[in-house]
């Protein structure tokens, strides 16, 4: 009887081990893992009322600076392959403007200037979406040195604004970051 038992166990073990097959698995594939997410985020914005622009001068200039330290993050910096900046300006003031967007490095040196011409408001919808600014290769390297963003608003010629001038100049902008991790 013992012999029969041991045979049964042997057969069971053999069936278990011999019948179990497995496809070839290749765990080295994990080395090919490549993540390519694309993230969107706000970049900069402002909203200036017409009566904030009242001056005697014929040409009014507004300038401001905001901190922009996202490139301090080494991981983000190392894996950013491409960036796109999108700008949208809505002008409801009856004056034309030129808006300049400055990328500044740590020494306040201008790395890049992006300029937008903004037509005067004439009673109809005046929202302009500007062509996407694409940053790749060398231009991307300049972008990565950016630590501050400067904005300059220059008023075009026309009737001076007064307390009763209506409307505002609004800028909304976003960035798309294309990350590659491999």
């Amino acid at each position, binding site marked *: 009887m013992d012999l029969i038992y041991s045979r049964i166990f042997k057969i069971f073990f053999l069936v*278990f081990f011999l019948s179990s097959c*497995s496809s070839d698995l290749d*765990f080295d594939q*994990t080395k090919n893992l490549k*993540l390519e997410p694309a993230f969107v985020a706000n*970049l900069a914005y402002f909203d200036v009322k017409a009566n904030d622009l009242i001056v005697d001068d014929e040409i009014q200039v507004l300038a401001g600076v905001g901190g922009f330290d996202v490139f301090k993050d080494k991981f983000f910096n190392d894996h950013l392959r491409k960036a796109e900046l999108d700008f949208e300006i809505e002008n409801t003031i009856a004056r034309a403007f030129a808006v300049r967007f400055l990328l500044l490095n740590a020494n306040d040196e201008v790395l890049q200037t992006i300029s937008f011409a903004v037509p005067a408001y004439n009673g109809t919808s005046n929202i302009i979406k500007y062509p996407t600014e694409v940053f790749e290769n060398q231009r991307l390297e300049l972008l990565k040195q950016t630590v501050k963003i400067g904005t300059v608003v220059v008023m075009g010629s026309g009737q001076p604004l007064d307390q009763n001038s209506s409307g505002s100049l609004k800028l909304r902008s976003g960035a798309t970051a294309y990350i590659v991790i491999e």
Partner: protein
Amino acid sequence: MRTAYLVLFVTILHFSCFAQNRELLYNFTAIPQSSLVNPGADVSYKFYFGFPVLSGISVNAGSSSFSAYDLFADNGVDFNDKVRNAINTSSRNDKVVANQQLELFSGGFRIGGRESRSYISFGLYQEFDFFMYVPKDMALLALDGNKNYIGRSFDLSDLSVKAEVLSVFHVGFHKKVNDKFVYGGRAKIYSSGANATSTKNSGYIYTGQNAGTPNLYTQIISSDLELKTSGISTFTKDEYEGNIAKDISHNTFFNGSLGLGFDAGFTYYIKDNLQLTASIIDVGFIKQSKDIETLTYKGTYQYEGVNPDFMNSDDPENVFDEFDKAIPRDTLYNKYTTWRPVKFYSSIQYSFGEARSDDECNCLGKVDKYYKNAVGVQVFAMTTPRAPIGAFTAFYRRNIFRKLDLKATYTFDSFSNKNIGLGLAGTLGKVNMYLLVNNILEFKDVTKANSAAFQFGINFIFQDPKD
């Protein structure tokens, strides 16, 4: 972002993991270890002891949505496509689980006189548990980013994972009160060498686009993330120069966080051939107190973008500083309590095919009667960080010879709806051996299985010699 990437990677690394239902061992009373899943199992012996280290080895792994083959098949399909498919076909309630147990020693003996039917059993086993829900939203964010998900909220509560290495010393008692009723209980001392728990997370990452707002996007991160660890933080320090595996195993047995728990169960014969059993296992807790560290990220941050300050030229605010202020990383050193996953089993079994012992002539006239066949059903349930998981099993048990039993099971659960298991337990002289394997249909290609379990062991059992 980095966290999401890590989570995805950990998902892949830990794929090879499994569930805890031991449907083949449950009520398979030819195996002394069946009292580990029902301390009130109708097991009898004069005394027994397990072959050290070989008395109970079990590994069990499962993933309810994808298999090893789906990810690692050597079939020319780009790995990134496989990862994407695995994530896309998973839901946040899919789980990846693993459990491994190794019995270091075990034994049991009858107490009282020869007619007594009370037993003490004891043992020490080591256990590894891993349980994770597929963190679907975070994986999507790591794979795709938020660009194509404007208006969608990524749910941070998808992140739910726990892992533990522990040793369990246990002493059990069971008593056959009469021919109809057996009850038993087991007290356990847990010693946890390493624990990581991150199951109470909440929050979201949202990017929306609304007309009329000053920003192009409405971006909010609301985070209530917490990772508690015990017995792990030493290894994450730069100055650590030891051997992690060795140190964890040392801590598991000699310097763990301690806890207490119990098991209870019974067997009741409604009729001679109709049996009802039930048990509850691992009702217990561990007070995590050694080398504890809790990391939290709590807060809400709305990202507006840069607003150039036209009015004054003070130093501008910085995005990172703002973020760190809004959602700071905090490290706490509070003790915490973890609850063991509680398991519940119950079965009803109908026996038929009456037989008599074919041993030598029984001169005392005592009739040693038993049934050659039994059929029945079992249920299993286990607590998890979210809703409990359950399984339903139909089984057939056949007594091939007097001391050789076969059990076949068909189990339906969230990992598989065609899990057929086979178990064999036999006693040759004093040597008791068992081998239990489930999901045998998948053995033709085990890499395609969503779950697999394997148990094996050797014991020495001593019965009273026949009078």
